[in-house]
């Protein structure tokens, strides 16, 4: 039984995608929380040495009303830094002179809104998987402040991000959710919140008011933290804070009980305006508590204290007189209760310590030996003694001293407990991870072993299969029955687990049999003299070294953070090697040139001899054609020869320019770059000119090989792109000079979409026609190029205007490489594939991506959409993010199908492409499994794992596309193959 190598590769990659999906399921386990205790658990009584205390009730609430004003992406320096002084005068006044406590609250990565909201309200640390679930947030089932407040009969009102409404359904007596997904709108989202304020502040029928403002975050996403829009937004927020505060104060004068106003951010904002990772700017948020209950001596300066974001949940619970959420790892902010009686302070500290120690008991097996727990016992004893003395009405001074000592001890205890809890690792599902890593490892080996899979059906192999299957099954039973641990594979239904195990054992069998066959063949080969024609050029060495080096570099967190440097470096080296090769073939004439053809796909696995006879015969055909064709660069005229010599240097120049367009990574991300310069409001004219020129260049580069209809559609489409950008206010429009109002450009974007779909449809129709009518290669290649130009048009629409030069350079490099390098030097299909893959990866980073969730440009998902629609938004975002690799891969298809004998070349290219992208994924999966206790596992390795998974998905789609084109071309090639 045989499978063609292209289809086989595509199938393998699809299997691998499933494997990675399952691996991710094991790597990001659903947080294994202990069963919630009955919520009506009575408050722990006050400890007392020898007797029971008379105070067993929960302490009364400290505040009558609480207003939480949450501003998305409120970085600490927006309030406490120079921006705060300049744009938030009232808040600065509160911080410096008012009755307020200010803190810098540290958020834990992932710094994305939903996990942060959960952390603020539950006090626990949501896992990384919450990022993935961020898009459809299910209701929060864990114990949290909002649920407790509702259970206590508080009336809660909420206005703002609708994430809250989804997290807390039916919790609010009144709410108005605004969608957070329309990033380019930063005024209306906030106006929709503020318009309710007057009415609500006048009414007195609520206890908790929660406001979540999104505008600041949206401005960050659009134009970064140094944009002038930030200042305006901060002033707006300041005036709102003043309104709320004055209204609360005037109400307090009537009601005589204090209320609390909380100003906080959920996460910060990186220097490029995104968030999601763990840089200092993203992690530090401002937290300001204001209440007339806080005392302040005149002239007292309090620098903002550093606290954890999770501390707010406990603080709110204490302030509202509610039980602290069960899974909260925070300690309440002590300054809040400083004005209260000592007995109450100790009581509250005790309650918090009891809650934390309970959590410790349920989470850590050896909790008695834990430092925090020992401290807790000591402080409980001190507290008990103090209460005893207090009730016996002892000397006031002794009481005060003892109380202060107990308080100090409690604060220390809380810190130790909180630290012990927050450093606790999430539980990994090791077993699933190992099984799936095995599966993933065997796929590239199966891929690498042979170009065509021979499914072994001999009795020996089936025996091996059964033995292995039984062995794995026994292991599965042992693991699942013995361990009490949480494991995804064990929770699967038996047939599914069985199927997974069968697949693993089948693949292992295949690998084993291929290896044995290889060994046998090696022995045979050793007896014979090695085939003399099989030699590696410098380029092949470079390609192998680069691929291996990149895979190895994935083990270091810095190399992952700066992966763009690896690709830029490899591409530059590639250009130098190509320049060497073109010089040599130009001046020396290439005497060893015909050797390019036989060493193709097989060289990767090191088994050139494993190529089955049919493809070898096709190689011979290619070889003959290569010999017949006039030799290489000699055929080119003088000017073209110069161009061929200069083109590697031109490409290097292009790469240098693109590097300065978008700074990515971590270490050098703060450097000024051309992208920021262009997007700043002072340089709109330059940006407009650049965008217009880029669109013209795109048309010039793509149009020459389009069909005439597609040419017209492309021109109109590119015009539409400019109109769209003009409508959204990114670039100046030449026809409406004074039109300042910014629309969403829905009509323009949809206009372009129509052309994109039209071009794609025509291209596919041409390809089908060539298959049905056997119209030959020209129709098919024109159709393919039409599809490609449709993709280019879509990319031009989705890219931000300052990124359009990336697209131009990509097209330019493709044209130059095709004309002057790949064609004249007659590189093999494998080499061309590798070069396309490398350039695709480099362009992924040129367009501003990095291995960091924060750089994903989600605004691409809203081009031409009125509201957030999940499927198209996801598709568009994914396409815009992976535009570089996708465009280069589709160019590869185009390039190879022009060549004579495209069928076998395409199949080999598909195979190589699949191999190239699945080797790093498998290696990375193993590495991540080994490094799962690494310090940077959440901030560096996990986002990269998500990126790799997504990249593999894109590769699978591309390989399926390759195979489809190959099938479509099969009929055209059929005659040739028969001839050959």
């Amino acid at each position, binding site marked *: 039984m045989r499978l063609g190598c292209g289809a086989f590769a595509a199938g393998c990659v699809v299997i691998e995608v499933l494997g990675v999906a399952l691996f991710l399921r094991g790597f990001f386990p659903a947080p294994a929380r202990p069963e919630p205790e009955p919520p009506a658990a009575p408050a722990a009584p006050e400890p007392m040495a020898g007797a029971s205390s008379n105070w067993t009730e929960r302490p009364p609430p400290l505040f009558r009303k609480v207003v939480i004003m949450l501003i998305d992406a409120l970085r600490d320096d927006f309030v406490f830094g120079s921006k705060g002084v300049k744009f938030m005068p009232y808040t600065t006044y509160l911080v410096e002179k008012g009755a307020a406590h200010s803190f810098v609250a540290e958020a834990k990565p992932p710094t994305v809104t939903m996990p942060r909201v959960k952390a603020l309200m539950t006090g626990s640390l949501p896992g990384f998987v919450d990022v993935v679930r961020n898009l459809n947030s299910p209701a929060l089932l864990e114990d949290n402040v909002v649920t407790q407040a509702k259970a206590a009969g508080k009336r809660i009102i909420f206005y703002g991000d609708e994430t809250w409404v989804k997290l807390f359904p039916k919790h609010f007596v009144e709410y108005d959710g605004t969608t957070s997904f329309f990033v380019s709108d930063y005024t209306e989202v906030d106006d929709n919140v503020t318009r309710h304020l007057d009415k609500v502040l006048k009414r007195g029928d609520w206890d908790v008011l929660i406001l979540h403002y999104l505008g600041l975050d949206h401005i960050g996403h659009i134009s970064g933290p140094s944009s002038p829009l930030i200042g305006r937004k901060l002033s707006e927020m300041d005036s709102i804070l003043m309104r709320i505060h004055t209204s609360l104060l005037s109400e307090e004068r009537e009601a005589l009980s204090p209320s609390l106003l909380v100003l906080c951010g959920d996460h910060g904002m990186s220097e490029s305006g995104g968030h999601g990772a763990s840089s200092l700017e993203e992690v530090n948020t401002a937290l300001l508590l204001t209440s007339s209950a806080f005392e302040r001596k005149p002239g007292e300066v309090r620098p903002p204290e550093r606290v954890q974001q999770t501390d707010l949940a406990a603080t709110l619970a204490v302030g509202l007189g509610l039980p602290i959420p069960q899974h909260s790892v925070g300690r309440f902010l002590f300054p809040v209760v400083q004005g209260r009686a000592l007995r109450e302070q100790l009581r509250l500290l005790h309650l918090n310590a009891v809650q934390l120690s309970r959590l410790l008991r349920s989470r850590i097996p050896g909790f008695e030996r834990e430092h925090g727990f020992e401290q807790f016992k000591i402080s409980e004893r001190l507290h008990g003694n103090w209460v005893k003395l207090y009730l016996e009405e002892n000397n006031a001074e002794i009481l005060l001293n003892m109380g202060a000592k107990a308080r100090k001890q409690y604060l220390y205890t809380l810190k130790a407990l909180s630290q012990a809890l927050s450093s606790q690792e999430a539980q990994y599902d090791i077993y699933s991870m190992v099984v799936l890593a095995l599966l993933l490892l065997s796929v590239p080996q199966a891929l690498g072993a042979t170009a065509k899979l021979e499914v072994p059906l001999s009795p020996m192999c089936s025996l091996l299969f059964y033995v292995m299957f039984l062995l794995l099954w026994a292991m599965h039973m042992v693991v699942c029955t013995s361990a009490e641990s949480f494991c995804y594979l064990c929770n699967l239904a038996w047939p599914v687990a069985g199927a997974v195990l069968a697949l693993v054992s089948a693949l292992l069998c295949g690998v084993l049999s291929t290896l044995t066959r290889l060994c046998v063949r090696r022995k045979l080969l050793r007896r014979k003299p090695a085939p003399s024609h099989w030699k590696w050029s410098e380029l092949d060495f470079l390609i192998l070294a680069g691929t291996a080096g990149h895979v190895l570099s994935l083990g*270091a*967190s*810095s*190399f992952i*953070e*700066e992966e763009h*440097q690896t690709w830029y*470096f490899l591409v530059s*080296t590639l250009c130098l090697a190509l320049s*060497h090769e073109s*010089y*040599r073939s130009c*001046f*020396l004439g290439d005497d*060893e040139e015909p050797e390019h053809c036989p060493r193709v796909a097989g060289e990767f696995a090191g088994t050139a001899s494993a190529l089955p006879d049919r493809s070898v015969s096709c190689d011979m055909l290619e070889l003959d054609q290569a010999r017949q064709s006039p030799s290489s660069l000699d055929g080119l005229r003088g000017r073209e020869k110069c161009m061929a010599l200069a083109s590697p240097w031109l490409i290097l120049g292009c790469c240098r*320019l693109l590097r*300065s367009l978008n700074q990515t*990574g971590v*270490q050098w991300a703060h*450097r*000024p*770059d*051309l992208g920021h*310069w262009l997007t700043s409001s002072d340089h709109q004219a330059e940006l407009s000119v650049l965008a217009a020129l880029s669109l013209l260049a795109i048309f010039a580069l793509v149009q020459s090989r389009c069909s005439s209809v597609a040419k017209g559609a492309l021109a109109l489409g590119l015009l539409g792109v400019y109109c769209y950008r003009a409508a959204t206010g990114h670039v100046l429009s030449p026809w409406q000079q004074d039109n300042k109002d910014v629309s969403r450009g829905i009509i323009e974007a949809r206009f372009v979409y129509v052309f994109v779909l039209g071009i794609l449809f025509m291209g596919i129709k041409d390809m089908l026609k060539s298959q049905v009518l056997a119209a030959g290669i020209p129709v098919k290649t024109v159709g393919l190029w039409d599809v490609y130009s449709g993709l280019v048009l879509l990319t031009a629409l989705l890219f931000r205007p300052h990124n359009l030069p990336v697209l131009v350079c990509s097209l330019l490099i493709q044209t130059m490489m095709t004309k002057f390098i790949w064609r004249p030097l007659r590189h093999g299909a494998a080499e061309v594939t590798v070069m396309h893959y490398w350039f695709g990866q480099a362009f992924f980073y040129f367009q501003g991506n990095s291995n960091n969730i924060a750089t994903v440009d989600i605004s691409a998902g809203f081009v031409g959409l009125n509201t957030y629609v999940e499927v198209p938004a996801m598709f568009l975002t994914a396409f815009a993010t992976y535009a570089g690799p996708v465009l280069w891969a589709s160019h590869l298809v185009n390039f190879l199908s022009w060549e004579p004998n495209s069928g076998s070349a395409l199949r080999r290219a598909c195979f190589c492409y699949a191999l190239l992208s699945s080797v790093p994924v498998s290696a990375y999966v193993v590495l991540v499994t080994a490094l799962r206790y690494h310090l940077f596992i959440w901030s560096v390795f996990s986002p990269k794992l998500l990126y790799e998974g997504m990249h593999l998905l894109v590769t699978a789609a591309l390989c399926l596309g390759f195979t489809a084109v190959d099938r479509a071309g099969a009929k055209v090639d059929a005659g040739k193959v028969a001839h050959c």
Partner: protein
Amino acid sequence: MKFLFPRLVLETFLFAVILSTFTTVPCLCLLGPNLKAWLRVFSRNGVTSVWENSLQITTISSFLGTWLGAFPIPLDWERPWQVWPISCTLGATFGYVAGLIISPLWIYWNRKQLTYKNN
């Protein structure tokens, strides 16, 4: 607009001077301004004398050292020598020294197989 132009121009220039001292100057001394000879020496089986052989080895090893010297730059060890172009300069120097050591040894070991077209 300064981000369009390279930073550390002087340092880069000095690095280029060092690298060309290791590579271009010996080549110029031995081969002269003859592009074909250069290309021949740096292709496979193109050397025609012991001198060219050692020239090939030292040049390639200094380039390889420079190339490998760029690797530590992105690592976060915060060492003073990780800065561009110090590590590359070190790599070039070590590569050149390694080439000087390797080339006589290589020629000595392979003296049986070395048959030059001219001799």
